[in-house]
């Protein structure tokens, strides 16, 4: 999961202070692993350096948490590219995919397309595995099958999420 893209995506809904960003992230995505302030600052400084965000203003009192960040056009493009690029299908992808879906909903992008793209990517890999399995020996077959079953589970999750997009959107925007 890319924290940088996630924070960028959160900024797309409007400029935020550093502490505000951390709270928003924790609320939506960091249920079991809240961000450290250090992570926020190092990420933000990297984004600043790459010109994806700018400092919008500083509240009196100093300290990095007092800085207000805003996303740049380059930052928006970067978020869009990230969302549109399917993740490499691999086990335990859900948290990343979930983050992407929520961000897409938050930023008004097409979450369904995102899921479809991901699903096509999953199937592409499954097709490849199927092909490899067909030509391989028993060991290959068993290994491929393991991957296939996991990917299938992911795909089912994708389908289920797609079927529940409306409800998720309502909850995210609340």
């Amino acid at each position, binding site marked *: 999961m890319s924290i940088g893209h996630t924070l960028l995506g959160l900024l797309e809904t409007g400029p935020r202070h550093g502490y505000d960003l951390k709270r928003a992230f924790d609320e939506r995505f960091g249920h079991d692993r809240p961000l450290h302030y250090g992570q926020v600052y190092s990420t933000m400084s990297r984004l600043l350096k790459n010109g994806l965000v700018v400092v919008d203003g500083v509240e009196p009192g100093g300290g990095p948490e007092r800085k207000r960040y805003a996303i740049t056009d380059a930052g928006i493009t970067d978020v869009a590219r990230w969302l549109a690029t399917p993740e490499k299908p691999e086990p335990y992808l859900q948290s990343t995919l979930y983050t992407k879906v929520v961000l897409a909903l938050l930023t008004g992008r097409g979450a369904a397309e995102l899921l479809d793209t991901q699903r*096509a990517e999953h*199937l592409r890999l499954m097709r490849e595995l*199927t092909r490899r399995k067909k030509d391989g020996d028993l060991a290959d077959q068993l290994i491929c099958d393991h991957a*296939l079953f996991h990917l*299938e589970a992911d795909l089912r999750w994708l389908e289920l999420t797609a079927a529940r997009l409306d409800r998720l959107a309502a909850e995210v925007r609340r």
Partner: protein
Amino acid sequence: MTTEPLLRATGLTKAYGATPALSGADFALRAGEVVAVMGPSGSGKSTLLHCLAGIVRPDAGTLAYDGRDLTALSDTARSALRRTDFGFVFQFGQLVPELSCAENVALPLRLNGEKRKAAEARAVEWLARLEVDDTADKRPGEISGGQGQRVAVARALVTAPRVIFADEPTGALDSLNGERVMRLLTEASRDTGAAVVLVTHEARVAAWSDREVVVRDGSVRDTEWAA
């Protein structure tokens, strides 16, 4: 994508009574390719297949097969086309319970007017190819589900069709048997150059295809042709 597809549908619409099953579906199938039609149940997958195969006449939309307008053909002409150019595999209940497996496979050939002896000889060859030659003289009730589906695949392929329509062909089978059916179906269709329209809701089955389209709420997302 330069060649004209073998089967092309645009804007297919079909309703059963007040229930819309398809609302503007687009689809294209090139010769020899295996396309998976996926989507949640009730999305209109089967209706799409029935329309594409000329079993059901769509309410609206165009449907061209090999340069012919399928929607304009009479019922008789569509039946004849299905006999000669299409093959079918369904989930279950497609084999005539009284006929032996060989006779079941020979049935489409005989419907095309072939002599019984010749038809049954070809049927036995196909049964062997699908690794169920031992079922030739048995009746469908006496063989396993997996064997039955392979007999059904043999029956779909025996007329050397250009398109095979398979509607959840592994829906009633366990993983291993399902896989065997899919392997044999795709291999045999590739060997004969038949295109396959494979309706399924299972990703592992769809993974045997060359590409997939998704039906959602009666419309089709064809990631390749929509572009």
